[in-house]
């Protein structure tokens, strides 16, 4: 069972109109205070997990490339001193093209970061403007090259399904992406999240969202082109060359253990034989105060029943091409037949699941209607 630590950095230079992550714009950030707070929460979590090795660390956000390298350094030091890192550790840091330069990248690398995840979002100027990004295509490309030069591994994120996006323009953009990428890319569909400025604009009719049928076609096209170029679509929105998978994200999808550090972070942990979910207070200032007062910013922990754990494992695991091992499901559910056999059979004969005695695995067709498949399996 792998163990990962997610560290949330809640600040950005500006807030993108589509984004509903726990990200805030602040004028003054007391990095020393954040260092102390991260350390305290890490220590609290250590008391829960006890000694074990850490396989991955992920600095997510927000925009973690805004962190002082010293802050990153401190966090990694604390982790190293408490648990220690496993031999093939992965430390990823999310970065924005606007907030990086080679000095800073090098500083991150020198304190242990060995993978960068860059928020590129688009390689078309107008679309970057629509997405409210504060960088242009050129900056994005430069940042990609820089990351590739400095870090052993890197990935970047692109959002498709943008208004008026056509198959041919996406095809051209994918060509550029394929040229630029090294090993890994995440291709997400634009979702118009409630409560975001984008949602408001959409509701007001300021722009027309791409119809679902078109988004579905782009999804198919993406899969075709990427796999034709030798990339495996190892998870619904992730593509990579063999061995380039995001090991940290695999921990989520394989439903292994992970700690969530920082405001709004989520965790799934084993402590004293119990499985708990942790969820921290989202507001950065309140989280800081809580940590300073109580040693952590968590809401009360919630214990999951074995059924709930089974459900979560299926929800996450079916996103993966490799699926989930049936043995794992049995042990999570603590029963010999965790899932309804008839239902599984029906999906197999419908060509939505592979007929695999070892694991539960969706076919290409099954993945396209994954939400319904998951609901059906878990019913």
């Amino acid at each position, binding site marked *: 069972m792998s163990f990962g630590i*997610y560290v949330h950095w809640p600040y950005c230079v500006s807030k993108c109109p589509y984004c509903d992550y726990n990200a805030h714009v602040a004028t003054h950030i007391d990095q020393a205070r954040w260092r102390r707070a991260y350390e305290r929460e890490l220590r609290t979590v250590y008391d829960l997990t006890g000694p074990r090795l850490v396989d991955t660390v992920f600095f*997510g956000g927000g925009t973690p490339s805004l962190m002082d390298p010293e802050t990153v350094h401190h966090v990694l030091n604390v982790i190293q001193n408490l648990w220690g890192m496993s031999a093939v550790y992965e430390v990823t840091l999310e970065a924005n093209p606007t907030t990086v330069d080679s000095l800073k990248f090098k500083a991150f690398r020198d304190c242990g970061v060995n993978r960068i995840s860059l928020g590129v979002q688009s390689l078309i100027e107008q679309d970057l403007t629509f997405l409210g990004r504060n960088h242009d295509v050129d900056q994005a490309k430069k940042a990609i090259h820089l990351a590739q030069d400095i870090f052993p591994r890197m990935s970047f*994120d692109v959002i498709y399904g943008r208004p008026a996006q056509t198959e041919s323009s996406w095809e051209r953009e994918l060509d550029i992406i394929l040229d630029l990428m090294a090993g890994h890319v*995440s*291709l*997400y*569909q634009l*979702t118009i999240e409630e409560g975001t400025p984008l949602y408001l604009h959409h509701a007001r009719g300021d722009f027309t969202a791409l119809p*679902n*049928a078109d988004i*579905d076609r782009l*999804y198919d096209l993406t899969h075709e082109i990427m796999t034709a170029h030798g990339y495996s679509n190892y998870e*619904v*929105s992730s593509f990579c060359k063999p061995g380039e998978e995001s090991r940290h*994200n695999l921990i*989520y999808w394989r439903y292994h253990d*992970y700690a*969530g550090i920082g405001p709004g*972070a*989520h*965790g*799934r942990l084993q402590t004293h034989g119990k499985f708990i*979910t942790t*969820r921290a207070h989202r507001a950065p200032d309140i989280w800081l105060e809580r940590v300073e007062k109580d040693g952590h910013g968590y809401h009360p922990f919630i214990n999951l029943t074995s059924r709930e754990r089974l*459900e*979560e494992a299926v*929800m*996450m695991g079916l996103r993966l091409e490799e699926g989930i091992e049936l043995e794992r499901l049995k042990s999570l559910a603590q029963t010999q037949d965790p899932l309804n056999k008839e239902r599984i059979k*029906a*999906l197999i004969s*419908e060509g*939505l699941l592979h007929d695999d005695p070892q694991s539960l695995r969706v076919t290409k*067709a099954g*993945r*396209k*209607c*994954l*939400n*319904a*498949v*998951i*609901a*059906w399996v*878990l*019913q």
Partner: protein
Amino acid sequence: MSLTEKIPQSRIRNFAIIAHIDHGKSTLADRLIETCGGLEKREMKEQILDNMDIERERGITIKAQTVRLNWKGPDGEIYQLNLMDTPGHVDFSYEVSRSLASCEGALLVVDASQGVEAQTLANVYQALDNNLEIIPVINKIDLPAADVDRAKQQIEDVIGLDASNAVAVSGKTGLNITDLLDAIVTRLPAPTGDPAAPTKALLVDSWYDSYLGVVILVRVIDGTLKKGQKVRFMNTAATREVDRVGIFTPKHILLDQLGPGEMGFITAGIKEISETKVGDTITDEKHQTVKALPGFKPSVPMVFCSLFPVDSSEFEKLRESLARLALNDASLHYEAESSQALGMGFRCGFLGLLHMEIIQERMEREFNLDLIPTAPSVVYKVYKTDGTMQEVYNPVDLPDMARIEKIEEPWIKATILTPDEYLGSLLQLCQERRGEQLNLSYVGNRAMLEYRLPLNEIVFDFYDRLKSISRGYASFDYHLDKFMEGDLVRMDILVNQESVDALAMIVHRSQSDRRGRHLCERLKDLIPRQLFKVAIQAAIGGKVIAREDLSALRKDVTARCYGGDVTRKRKLLDKQKEGKKKMRQYGNVDIPQSAFIAALKMGDE
């Protein structure tokens, strides 16, 4: 002079306010109450007598209400007015008939912008049957579209009532309300009860009040009803002691007694309204009146449907809720039944479609029940080859066709009033619904249509169609006529070859193709795409008459970055699960109950 003081019978006026739906009865009642000072201005709200939530929200009256008011007449004397506000909708005409039986007069309200409508006619005829003195009241004269002369003309032409001294008012602005009050005092007759005779009172209505218990609305005919008096309910033969006597002003006010000609309420330690019978005669236990009042015809349910709880564990709760509603609604009939598709539920009888809709809504709101109602249907008389007759309320109870000699269905007589530009389409509608034209006459530019129609075709969606064809201008009233033989068959709906009993219906053979096709098409739109292909069929006795195929769902995935926030994904699943709870499974197919409900409610075309 206060409302509780004794007023001689010659200065009592009992009257009901009757009209077509929405012509402004309740609003007029507000102005009468306000003008007589029954409530202070700050205590007033619109349609104050519509006190049920559902009445206030829908802006309609469901239950008749009584208020006592005092008014100083043109002669300077104080009069006691007992006002009854009645519902306008056809389903509740039973309430109107009870009110009319306890009054000497009626205000016939006609909306000056609409004129005489079908329900105006139905209600005024009832009033005339009860020998009531009628004051025509032309209402809403503040509206720009008001045409007082036309309304008067229609009252004369359509109803045949003298409208020369109709009172024109606005219930909204209060214009001419004092004139109306003076007209009530001078033109309506006083009651003529015998004060010395043994107590004789009409049980007009009863309901359950959580504070007072069962409250009985009475109209005293002869003698007096006193607190502490031992009374006998002649019909149920029960004897009780009156423990409270009072009136509504509209607030409850307790008195010592009610005299001849007066209206008010009593309580008599009764636990359930089933122990009371509307129309019963209340008399003194020792000095009994010789002749009981004629009473009321019992209300007959016209429309039936079954109600099932979405969550089958709520069956008992459903039973209790129905019992609670029936406490205050003698017209609600119900009995337990069980369905293969929907589990345990109740077959219920209603006065009409609105009544049905309102009961369903109250169950869901007041008792927090999630219900699946089946398609409304009527009662059929099934004559079997063995010479027996069976009443069938539920399509699934229909015996095998081979054992049926003949089936009879209820027919109604309908009156439709419509501006003549819609006449053509309405004739066509009635024709399509197997109608038989009885009469067609004109009043100005409005046509009055009389038709005989099978009730079965009405409960389907007739009223909605009528309203949409006429853009809301046609009005409609009906009453039960008689049972007649028809070529009726049971149509089943099959989803992936499994029959869905809740969707079975009895239809006329001539309508079955159209209905079957339409229902299948609708279901195809209503059932969300599934992971598997779904075949939807309509069949009569094993023969498929319509079929639609719903192709399988092949796109339902979101490529999104969830990170470690499984909770967020979970919410998605929970939402789906919550949805599933409201689904029924047919083989591989989950049909949301909303699809049943919509299919069952659906309109034609």
